[in-house]
């Protein structure tokens, strides 16, 4: 079935030929003008054939390329292209889309990039093995990609910045809220004023302290919170402060008063700190109600004063008592001496000359009077320890102790006692009183002995500011419940028949030790006996 188009053979042939020529022409012109660089190299990498695009890389005309090497024409790219070509020649396989970047001699400032593909090829003349190169300039694309990447980076950075900004904004808001919370919850009144003394901000506590609503305070002069009679003065002080602002308590040494809305005044403590806001100076005043503290201070002062009065009173009555004890015992001595002397005279003259009852009565009278004399004598000694001044001098305790042992010779011999004196110090004290102290303790240790002959050891060790003395015996010991009582005057643990004595020796010891600034106590000795401990200051101290 004939068609109109195919019906004209002439036209058809001409068209076919024309199409073929056009095609060839266009392929060749296409190859010549394409933006792809095309070229064939022999196995020595000499150009055999190439198009103008590829030739443009070296800047030399197309014809000038034939027979010359890559190295000669493109010295800057040859180190990158040569290995590529060699690989294709060696493997016989194409190598596609290799990205190479470098600079051309014509444009040394600009880095350019190419996608290079190599194909094994036959060179036309002698069908020798060669290589076809396809080179596409991708510099623009690369640059565009980089620009996009850079843009993306900038966008990301921007996002980060925005994120950080909004985060710090959130933090600032949180801090602000926290600050508000703190301000409102603060246990002190906080008032912020500007440089004219106008209240800018107050917290909840300020409202509570002063009885104002904050709206009544904001914008008001701060003097509203101060008693009227102090307001003028405060303005002066405030102006002074503004001139030299610093963080400091207000009105040191002054009684500061706050004034409530209802006119009530109360003691306050205020600390000030400046707050520079740009060019404006704000001042924060932290106000604390110290009514309670003042009250406590007053009470403390009253208590201290009362205590001081009581102490003085006690000291006075103590001194009076000692004086009384001294005077009484001194004045009692005389009549007592009469009683004692005459009962003794009675006994001397009439014992055995009356009846047995009379002898017994006289016996009790003599005994009673003698004991009373001893008591009064001891009482005198005791009160003298308290009323006489201390004569403090360096006392060689070893010498004093040896003297005491010599004085006690009779008692020591009688009881077959052993008295050991360890190394003792020389220390400041009253020689006579220390002698009495040693004498009483050693005599006691000998006196209150058990079955075995008494063994007494006097020793001392240095303990800080003090010498710690011990008088250890193997005697009858002291039950712990009496450890305190034995140092009280006239307290005795035994009847006269068991152990004679007035119960004043240890009271005197305590008084002597305490007047010297030391302490005395008793502890059980491991095994039988007791150990008396006392301390004496090693250096001169205030003892009175």
């Amino acid at each position, binding site marked *: 079935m004939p068609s109109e188009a195919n019906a004209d053979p002439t036209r058809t042939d001409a068209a076919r030929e024309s199409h073929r020529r056009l095609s060839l022409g266009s392929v060749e012109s296409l190859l010549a003008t394409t933006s792809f660089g095309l070229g064939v190299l022999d196995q020595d990498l000499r150009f055999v054939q190439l198009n103008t695009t590829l030739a443009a890389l070296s800047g030399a005309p197309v014809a000038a390329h034939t027979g010359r090497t890559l190295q000669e024409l493109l010295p800057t790219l040859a180190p990158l292209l040569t290995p590529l070509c060699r690989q294709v020649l060696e493997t016989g396989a194409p190598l596609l889309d290799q990205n190479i970047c470098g600079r051309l001699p014509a444009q040394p400032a600009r880095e350019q990039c190419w996608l290079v593909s190599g194909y094994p090829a036959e060179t036309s003349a002698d069908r020798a093995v060669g290589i076809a190169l396809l080179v596409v300039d991708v510099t623009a694309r690369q640059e565009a990609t980089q620009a996009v990447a850079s843009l993306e980076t900038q966008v990301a950075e921007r996002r980060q910045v925005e994120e950080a900004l909004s985060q710090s904004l959130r933090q600032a808001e949180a801090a602000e809220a926290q600050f508000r919370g703190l301000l409102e919850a603060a246990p002190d009144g906080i008032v912020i004023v500007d440089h004219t003394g106008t209240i800018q901000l107050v917290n909840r506590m300020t409202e509570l302290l002063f009885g104002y609503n904050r709206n009544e305070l904001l914008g008001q002069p701060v003097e509203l919170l101060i008693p009227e009679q102090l307001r003028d003065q405060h303005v002066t002080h405030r102006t002074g402060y503004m001139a030299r602002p610093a963080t400091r308590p207000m009105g040191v040494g002054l009684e500061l008063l706050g004034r409530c809305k209802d006119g009530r005044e109360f003691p306050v403590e205020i600390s000030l700190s400046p707050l520079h806001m740009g060019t404006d100076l704000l001042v924060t005043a932290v106000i604390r109600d110290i009514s309670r503290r003042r009250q406590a201070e007053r009470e403390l002062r009253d208590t201290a004063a009362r205590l001081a009065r009581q102490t003085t009173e006690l000291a006075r009555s103590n001194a009076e008592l000692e004086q009384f004890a001294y005077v009484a015992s001194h004045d009692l*001595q005389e009549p007592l001496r009469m009683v004692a002397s005459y009962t003794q*005279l009675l006994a001397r003259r009439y014992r055995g000359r009356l009846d047995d009852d009379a002898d017994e009565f006289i016996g009790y009278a003599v005994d009673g009077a003698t004991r009373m004399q001893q008591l009064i004598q001891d009482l005198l000694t005791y009160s003298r320890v308290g009323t006489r001044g201390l004569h403090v001098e360096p006392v060689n305790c070893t010498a004093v102790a040896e003297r005491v042992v010599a004085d006690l010779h009779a008692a020591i011999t009688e009881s077959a006692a052993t008295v050991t004196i360890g190394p003792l110090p020389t220390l400041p004290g009253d020689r006579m009183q220390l002698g009495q102290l040693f004498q009483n303790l050693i005599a006691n240790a000998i006196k209150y002995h058990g079955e075995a002959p008494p063994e007494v050891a006097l020793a001392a060790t240095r303990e800080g500011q003090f010498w710690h003395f011990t008088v250890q015996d193997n005697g009858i010991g002291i039950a712990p419940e009496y450890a305190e009582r034995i140092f009280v005057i006239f307290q005795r643990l035994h009847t006269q028949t068991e152990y004679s004595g007035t119960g004043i020796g240890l009271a005197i010891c305590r008084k002597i030790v305490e007047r010297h600034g030391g302490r005395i106590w008793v502890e059980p000795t491991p095994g039988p006996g007791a150990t008396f401990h006392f301390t004496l200051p090693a250096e001169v101290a205030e003892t009175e």
Partner: protein
Amino acid sequence: MNAMQTDTTGRPIEILLVEDSPGDVRLTKEALREGKIRNHLSVASDGELALAFLRREGRYADAPRPDVILLDLNLPRKDGREVLTEIKADPQLRRIPVVVLTTSSNEEDIVRAYDLHANCFITKPVNLDQFISVVQSIESFWLTTVTLPE
């Protein structure tokens, strides 16, 4: 009041006791009575009377000159220290030994008494036996042991 024995010269020795306490006076007498020496004891109960006695004033015109004076310190009217001062200041009396016999054992009293030229200072013992022996030793020391000017 008079001891039965005589001293070597045959006359009883004269003692002046200056003491305001009758109890002490009697005790001293009793102590002297138990002693071995014949003595004559005169008593002045205050300082004024003691000096009047020694200076043979008024009713003491015939008073004997004592061989020894036993002087208490605490006396009414004129006390023992003043009496001692006046005795030792008086050329007629100053050679008579003065024994201060007192209840005091106060260091200050002792020093003061010797400063006023007391011949000795004795604290009265509280025990009778010791008191008797003290009085007797005073007697024997000052009246028989020491040599005094005639």
